[in-house]
């Protein structure tokens, strides 16, 4: 017995974003990169640290954006991949004395494999159910990390302390500043990679699947492969972000990677604008700074303030910062004409 479901009239899971609208113009990019390069020279160490975290969370949100904005799949489980990346880096650095820079590719590759494998069962689910299954992954991850079986590597509940690397070649920089520029270089590299990925054959395949899975498979796209590939790439980038996060925070523990982190990353994506890659960093700024503001408004109610803000974004600016940027651009254009 089988049930027949009409899907022709259904709304797609994620609204389509035109390919050209996914990136910034070259002029704006230049200004942003210049600012990112120069600002740290004039601010305090704590602010440099926060900017580093912004880039790291930005990478994690970017990874989610490739998965959701690119291939139309949801994930509330990004914190799990972030945790695996962080633990990979921390274990390699502290237990095996491997150079921090070399641990990041390893974290990326391991997370890619993990994401690719998780993508297999995830193929059977779509929409809200996929969100719920990844939600289960995110809630289970801290408990898996606490397992006695892994304790000799992970340090169990206590976690691991990670030493912060010094600037190499005797560069006259503080540790924080070096780490910032190191993170910035990796972020730019991954950003360029992501932009090119979405413009490539694979990226077009992702977007075809996002817009209409059946039509995509009719055009000869191997839906299963590309869906799992999107999961793998997204997890890999999240893993690198996690590794960087472990080095920046100098500490990994199971309870740093709960569902709260996964929800924050998801929130960052919605605020930044789904499918708009530069928005990932706007979203990251939101999830780093707004909780502080929310706690300033009311200590116990920070979750509620967060939720209310999310509803406001959904109702007022459903395309997140992309919409704001577009409105700003139009206003600028009008001003120039006058």
């Amino acid at each position, binding site marked *: 017995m089988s*049930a027949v*479901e009409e899907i022709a009239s259904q709304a797609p*899971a994620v609204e389509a974003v035109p390919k050209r609208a996914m990136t910034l113009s070259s002029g704006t990019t230049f200004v942003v990169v210049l600012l990112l390069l120069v600002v740290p020279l004039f601010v305090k160490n704590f602010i440099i640290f926060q900017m580093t975290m912004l880039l790291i969370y930005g990478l994690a949100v970017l990874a989610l954006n490739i998965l959701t904005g690119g291939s139309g799949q949801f994930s509330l489980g990004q914190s799990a991949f972030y945790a695996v990346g962080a633990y990979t880096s921390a274990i390699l650095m502290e237990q095996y004395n491997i150079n921090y820079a070399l641990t990041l590719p390893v974290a990326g590759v391991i997370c890619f494999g993990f994401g690719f494998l998780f993508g297999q069962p995830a193929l059977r689910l779509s929409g809200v*159910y996929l*969100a719920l*299954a990844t939600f289960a992954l995110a809630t*289970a991850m801290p408990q898996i990390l606490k397992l006695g079986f892994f304790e000799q590597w992970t340090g169990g509940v206590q976690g691991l302390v990670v030493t912060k690397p010094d600037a190499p070649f005797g560069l006259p920089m503080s540790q924080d500043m070096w780490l910032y520029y190191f993170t910035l270089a990796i972020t730019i590299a991954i950003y360029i990679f992501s932009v090119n990925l979405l413009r490539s054959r694979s990226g077009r395949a992702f977007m075809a699947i996002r817009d209409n899975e059946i039509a995509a498979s009719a055009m000869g796209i191997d839906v299963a492969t590309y869906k799992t590939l999107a999961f793998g790439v997204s997890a890999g980038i999240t893993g690198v972000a996690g590794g960087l996060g472990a080095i920046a925070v100098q500490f990994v523990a199971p309870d740093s990677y709960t569902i709260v982190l996964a929800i924050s990353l998801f*929130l960052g994506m919605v605020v930044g604008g789904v499918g708009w890659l530069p928005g990932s960093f706007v979203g990251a700024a939101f999830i780093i700074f707004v909780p502080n503001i929310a706690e300033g408004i009311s200590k116990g109610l920070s979750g509620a303030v967060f939720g209310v803000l*999310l509803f406001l974004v959904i109702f007022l600016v459903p395309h997140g910062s992309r919409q704001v940027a577009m409105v700003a651009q139009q206003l600028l254009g009008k001003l120039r004409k006058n």
Partner: protein
Amino acid sequence: MELFTNQVLAGIATGAIYACMALAVVMIYQAIDHLNFAQGEMAMFSTFISWQLMQWGLPYWAAFIATLIFSFIGGIAIERVLFKPLTKAPILTQVAGFIALFSIINSCAGLIWDFTIKQYPTPFGSSPFLGSQLISTHQAGMIGITLLLLVGLYFFFQYTRVGLAMRAAAALPESARLVGINTSWMIALGWGMAAAIGSIAGMLIAPVVFLEPNMMGGVLIYGFAAAVLGGLTSPFGAVLGGFLVGIFENLAGTYIPHVGNEMKLPIALALIISVLVIKPAGLFGRNIVKRV
């Protein structure tokens, strides 16, 4: 062997919790074509309301009924105010809305009633049931209510006009509108019912897991695992899946070393993944054929 039967019995007792939640997940999905993430939190909030009413001196069953009505109206109100405007929005936006609701309710409950664990009374008493050491009368009552709920919902959806209209509105909204069904209100009704069923689940679970703002997190995931196991399209499968998951959890805890209470969620996750890999439609689910 005696250990085995005892553990199976205990598993059925805990399984009733999951069955209740899985029923809410599947039934409501069937009826309104939505799956609400904040369901568990809404149930938790309702349970707190009933606790508060009892603190103010209301007897158990009066508080029970009052909470049911409150949840029903609350569910409808949330749908009308927050989610009706999002009906046409992409699923992503709706998921974001559910998460926002989740966060708001959890945080508010924590602020109003704080995060300390509270005792919650049971109407059935906690003496051993029929002389068995493993099932208390409360757990037996919980199983009974779950089955009653299942039968009641079955008759509602199968044999009443409103039930039929709700199924029609979920399955084929356009056609349903053409024959004069107010689909928009059917969805609101579905939200109200989901909230009410959730509150029953919450009030039954609270004596077992104790009352606190995060009590529903694990239960929702187990409910989902049960629904996946039983087949997402089958309410009967969901209830059976709930009991099976409860038994499985208890047996795994007894016979596999290192599996304690802290392994609960990884087991649920492993279960979800293995069912999806081996038998994606679940035990009793139907394969859905898509028409382009």
